[in-house]
């Protein structure tokens, strides 16, 4: 019995999130305590189950659950090391974000709707992480789109609704591309589980019909590129930052953009396999596009005066490093990209938490209003500083590790131009983060004092999550050489799954 339960852990973890969502919807707006209990219970239970799976995978177990959905099509959940990287990231950050969101939104309206969809959104993300074939991936990918929409428009004002429309327009379009690609893939090779290094049947098919295989690959990538915010499909992301801070944090760090980037990894590595994707000539184009996005996002971030908008463009830039690492090929660049999947998540979630703290505690949204805020909110500002320096890529923080592996990986592939992109990104990140830090710490606070004077730091529930994730930014870099750091796990993924690279 317990063995059966153990084998069904992927399903259990997914069900936890769905049940949490259902319970929260059923509870309604008023019952705050029960809702909080369910929120935290769901997040903790899921985290424990994922941790159990991590332990199992370390011991060499495999978790795979499959059952037929349609004739010739099955739903498949599988926990390989790559899946668990993303699942672990989403579980940990979900717990932290839940705590934050409770403190942030418990006093506003429509809480049941918010937290219900919040849970559904995480369930979908988890499904994407553990999807074992293209159909399952598509299913949860679409579910994520629908679950996030109510979160983006949560505030309900016209700007939020407009952003929501933009978001839906982009992601549904991307979803259509992914759907078409998946259908074409099934038509060509039938039901095939994701296979590390590429599905053999796909390789065979590509030999017979390279044009069709290329077209389907482009289609699949176009579908996930929307969520990954690759240029020129990134427009929705800066607009979507009208959402409340916890949603932005989740969107930018875990759920949506990461789902896209994760999709790029899955499609290139586990459907086609890097060698085939390179042979079809798609990866160089993807690498070029990712590099353009890196620079474009940073340049646009420079011109923003709204803190969250600047962070949003920064996400556009930073997330593309993941696609870049995958597209470059080679073990080191892939390690860099996969580690950055986690690193970017913890860094960006910290930044959004802090932006939320400034907005919630002092009503500050614009960068030029941050003068002297370091003295008023030292802990929040310290967390912001750590994450911002990490984004710049300053050692010993997480971002430096990503940059190091991407750089040496690119050079190992003979792509020296990437070093130029990394250097440019460092400069641009410094150019748009250092002035913010200067305002926070060095400039004098406004003579009239901050609005809402009196209180000191942000509320505990807002502060502690930010401090925790900031500590994670530091530790992910400082302890990078250990086996359980994001880098260590990424190395394990590549060692186990892609020895052929």
């Amino acid at each position, binding site marked *: 019995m317990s063995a059966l339960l153990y084998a069904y852990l992927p399903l259990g973890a997914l069900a936890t999130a769905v049940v949490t969502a259902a319970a929260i919807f059923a509870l309604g707006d008023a019952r705050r305590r029960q809702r909080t209990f369910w929120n935290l219970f769901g997040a903790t239970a899921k985290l424990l189950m994922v941790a159990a799976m991590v332990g199992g995978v370390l011991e060499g177990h495999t978790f795979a659950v499959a059952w037929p959905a349609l004739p010739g099509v099955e739903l498949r959940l599988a926990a390989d090391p790559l899946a668990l990287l993303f699942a672990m990231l989403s579980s940990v950050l979900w717990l932290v974000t839940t705590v934050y969101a409770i403190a942030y939104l418990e006093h506003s309206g429509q809480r049941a709707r918010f937290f219900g969809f919040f849970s559904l959104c995480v369930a979908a993300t988890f499904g994407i992480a553990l999807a074992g074939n293209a159909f399952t991936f598509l299913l949860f990918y679409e579910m994520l789109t629908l679950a996030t929409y109510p979160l983006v428009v949560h505030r309900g004002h016209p700007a939020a609704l407009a952003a929501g429309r*933009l978001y839906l*327009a*982009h992601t*549904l*379009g*991307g979803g*259509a*591309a992914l*759907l*078409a*690609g998946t*259908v*074409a893939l099934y*038509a*060509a090779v039938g039901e095939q589980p994701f296979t590390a290094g590429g599905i053999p049947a796909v390789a065979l098919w590509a030999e017979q019909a390279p*044009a*069709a295989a290329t*077209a*389907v690959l*482009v*289609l699949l990538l*176009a*579908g996930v590129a*929307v969520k990954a915010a690759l240029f*020129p*499909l990134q*427009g*929705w992301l800066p*607009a979507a930052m009208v959402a409340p801070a916890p949603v932005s944090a989740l969107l930018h760090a875990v759920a949506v953009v990461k789902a896209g980037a994760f999709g790029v990894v899955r499609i290139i590595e586990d459907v086609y396999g890097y060698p085939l994707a390179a042979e079809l000539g798609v990866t160089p184009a993807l690498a070029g596009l990712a590099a353009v996005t890196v620079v474009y996002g940073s*340049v*646009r971030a420079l*011109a923003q005066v709204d803190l969250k908008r600047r962070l949003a463009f920064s996400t556009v830039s930073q997330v593309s490093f993941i696609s870049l690492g995958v597209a470059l090929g080679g073990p080191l660049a892939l390690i860099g990209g996969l580690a950055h999947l986690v690193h970017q998540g913890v860094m960006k979630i910290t930044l959004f938490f802090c932006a939320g703290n400034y907005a919630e505690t002092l009503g500050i949204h614009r960068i030029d209003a941050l003068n002297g805020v370091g003295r008023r909110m030292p802990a929040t500002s310290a967390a912001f500083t750590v994450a911002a320096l990490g984004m710049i*890529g*300053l*050692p*010993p923080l997480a971002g*430096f*590790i990503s*940059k*190091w592996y991407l*750089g*040496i990986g690119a*050079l190992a592939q003979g792509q*020296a131009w990437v*070093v130029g992109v*990394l*250097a440019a990104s*460092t*400069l641009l990140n410094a150019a748009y983060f*250092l002035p913010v830090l*200067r305002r926070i*710490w*060095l*400039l*004098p606070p406004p003579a009239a004092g901050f609005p809402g004077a009196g209180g000191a730091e942000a509320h505990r529930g807002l502060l502690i999550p930010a401090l925790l994730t900031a500590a994670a930014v530091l530790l992910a*870099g*400082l*302890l*990078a*050489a250990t086996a359980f750091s994001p880098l260590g796990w990424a190395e394990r993924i590549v060692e186990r799954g892609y020895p052929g690279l």
Partner: protein
Amino acid sequence: MSDPALLLLAPVLAPLAAAALLGGRLQPLGAGLLAAAPLTALLALIPGVEALHLPWLLLDTRLGPDALGRALLALAAPVAAAALLFAVAGSRGQPRRRGLLTALAVTTAALMGVLLAADLASLYFAYAAMTLAAYPLVAHARTPEAFRAGRVYLGMAVLAEAAVLAAVLLLAAEGGNAALTEVPALVAGHEHRTALVGLILAGFAVKAGVVPLHAWLALAHPAAPVPASALLSALLVKAALVAWWRLLPIGELALPAFGTALVAAGLLSSLYASLVGTAQRRAKTVLAYSTVSQMGLLTALVGLALHRAEAAPAAGAALAVFALHHGLAKGALFLACGLQGRRRGWYLLLPALALAGLPGSTGALAKAGLKQVGGGELGAALEPLLLAASALTTVLMARLLYLAWRGPGGADPAGRRLAVLALVALGLGGPWLAAAQLAPGLSGYALQPKAMVEALVPVLAGALLAAGGVALRRHLRLPRIPEGDWIKPALLAGARLRRAGRRGWRRLPAWRWRPSGAALLRGAGALEQRLASVAASGVLLLALLLALAALGALTGP
């Protein structure tokens, strides 16, 4: 965990720990500990404390200073301690004291990290942290002048950092996070050697203050508080030398072109900075230019070692002795400039004479080391330039004494006087001891009658020039050269150019689209919005087309 090598962590951790005590009630204790913390650097010199390996930290961290690192640790311990003592003493109740002390502590810790690092990633980490931590020191006064100095400093430093990052990644691609002892050989055999050496030279040239990349120094030193300037000028700039020495293929192979270029750049820096510095009107600016000038000579030493592989050992020893001499003297001079007493000139006198290179002083010793390394045809070409540099340095020091001799008046806390006196006293003997250890024979060479006379000539010439200048001061008008010479005109010209450009655009016939920077960004924003509405339908269309194509291809033959 009783590995004696753990002591290597003390120089990094002690200042940070002391800084952590600065808040709250333990504040006096923290301040006292802070002043003593840099002395832990001496622990790293104990025999048996050689190498520490922390495989779990960062990317497999290794600590363990090389010979140059040890010499500079011996320098950093007293100079940083004196600077911190100066900052702590008599500063109670001053605005932003804790901020200043914390920034000083972090900078010191990072500097110690640079000196101790034995692997590529740690060196890069410590160097970048040091660069960033020095910014609040430069901008400490929070005046527009200080912020401008900070902006110029950080702008140049971050640009340099990008070059360093590229170099570090190029190295890591070949050898992973290599031990620094392996790096010179890695560079020597690197596929992109020329580019790599160029990046290393350019990346650290900003910190080393090679003209024309010295502009930040001339702005930062007068703007920063005195202890910060002392730290910057005596120690931080030398981190660049350490980095060059460890990363360049010195002793591995000769790179005559790069070597000659570096020697030329160094000597020209030295001459140029002495000349421009003499025209300055503030003592701290004069000292800043003096640092540029002296760093030029040190840069030339690195160039000599790069020029001829056989010169490397002697150049290394000479570099250590020179760095020690300059660090102690310059630290003492900057701190002395922060004294208020009417007779502060007496504190300045000895280090100033040493920098001028008076025979028998440590300056003469340092220059003798430089000359000894010279040799060869490059050495022959060097000789007259070195003479000129020595003479001009003497003039510069005379200018300093002229400007700074009389303090504004006021009592100096005992701690501050002690800090200056300790550095002056150490400056008299320290470099000789180092020379006895590192370069046997150098002291004897410097004290030969012939060498003494040779050293005396430029000093006398410089003194005569200076005396003439003082005698003719009513008839002589020094040219007005702004601090940082080219940077201010360049910034002004840039602003003017932008303004003129904008005006020019406005006067042009009304085009529908004007590609100015702001308009381009606006355009990007507008384009994005338009794309937003198009993207969805576009993606859908693309999807359908591709799907049709794919299905067609599938059902085909």
